[in-house]
């Protein structure tokens, strides 16, 4: 499994000159790896299961357990699967090059998003991943009542 930095680096450089099906596979694999990174960082064993035939979807679902904000990348993972299917089911299609470009950018977004969430988690939960940071705050208890704090 590549690190977050290695995965980011993969998308910074020129993409491998391989057959479309193999490149689509690379992107799907990169998506799986970033989700593996997320799960391992949260002390969880990444699942080998598949959902709807894809491990990436099972990993995304596993990553969301206990952290609903992680669902913000559900559609990105599904878009990656969608583009993978488009490319691999008909690699000779005239739009394959364009579909590969889109798959690349969707995979890159997933990596940036998850990588960013891992960094933010290190600073304290924020924004869409909001958690109550100060519920033990005495001032807050005085304001709304201890029973609600």
């Amino acid at each position, binding site marked *: 499994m590549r690190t977050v930095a290695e995965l980011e680096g993969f998308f910074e450089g020129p993409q491998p000159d391989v057959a479309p099906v193999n490149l689509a596979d690379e992107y799907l694999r990169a998506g799986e790896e970033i989700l593996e990174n997320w799960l391992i960082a949260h002390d969880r064993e990444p699942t080998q299961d598949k959902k709807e035939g894809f491990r990436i979807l099972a990993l995304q679902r596993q990553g969301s357990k206990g952290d*609903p904000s992680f*669902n*913000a*990348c*559900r*559609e*990105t993972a*599904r*878009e990656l699967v*969608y*583009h993978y299917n488009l490319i691999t089911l008909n690699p000779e299609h005239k739009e394959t090059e*364009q579909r590969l*470009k*889109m798959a690349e*950018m*969707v995979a*890159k*977004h997933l990596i*940036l*998003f998850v*990588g*960013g*969430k891992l*960094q*933010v988690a290190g*600073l304290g*939960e*924020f*924004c*869409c*991943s*909001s*958690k*109550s*940071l*100060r*519920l033990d705050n005495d001032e*807050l208890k005085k304001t*709304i*009542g201890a029973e*609600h*704090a």
Partner: protein
Amino acid sequence: MTTLFDKEDRKKKYKKVAYYPGCALEGTAQSYDKSTRAVGKALGLELVDVKNWNCCGAMEVKNIDPEIQTYLSSRVMSNAVNENKQDVVMAPCNGCYHNLKKAEYDISNKEKSKQVVEKISAKAGHKAYQEGEIETIHALDWIKFGFGEEELKEKIKGGLKGLKVANYYGCMYTRPRHIFPEKDQGGDSESTSKPHYMDDLLAIAGAENVEFPLKTACCGGAHTLSDSDMSTKLVLNILEAAEAAGAEVIATECPTCHSGLEMHQIRALKRLSKNTNVKVIYFTQLLGMAMGLSPRKVGLHANVSDSMKFVKQKGIA
């Protein structure tokens, strides 16, 4: 609860609604406010500003205590019901829209939330919001159903002339799914995985919508303060993906996404030497210009990035 079969009912209901601009539309997103009001006026839809409205709780309060955020949003809904006597409140900002929806859900489903709202409302001296008293809608619902798509065709003057548009909805318009029970119901309902209301309206206005796979992806708003470089990278990827999809414009319906896209577009050039040319324009601005309103009337000059020359070149203004 709105069902699939009450288009006519919704048209009547949305004709005059309480308007909750929220803080962004009075600050960084004044052009969204201006264009929303201008389009509504041109379509004969009426907006009644929520009296004495307050912050929805946004991200900041939610981060400290989600129950207080629920209360703040409930107060806006309570004022719309009790002060304005309205049964629909329209919020063009995704953050406000999301928080009002979340408050409705929490008050309906969590006893603790209901108790907190009752308690603080009593302390503050106003009526506590009760579940189901008002329907919260987005500006997209308001135009699509309050005016009607067939009727909108008649209002288009110059149109968008095949302008290639990537419709970008951001993350809060559809998530989490459980606070939007009216979505994913088939028929005319909105989809949470592939939203299309903005696509529908701009297609009527003459746009050519491109296939854009990042329409609900994170804009990096969450990282803006803690990790600006990450925000810039996320935005740059959205801008480059839109350009790779063939878009000339990214249409937005969220002030946070919009300002993030505009500002990080500039930052990407300065910090990463990455230039993108795709324009970022609110859907209400595009719709207004398609209806013949001038760029100034829809506040195009108030956007951070300058699209004036572009819309003139395209013959839209």
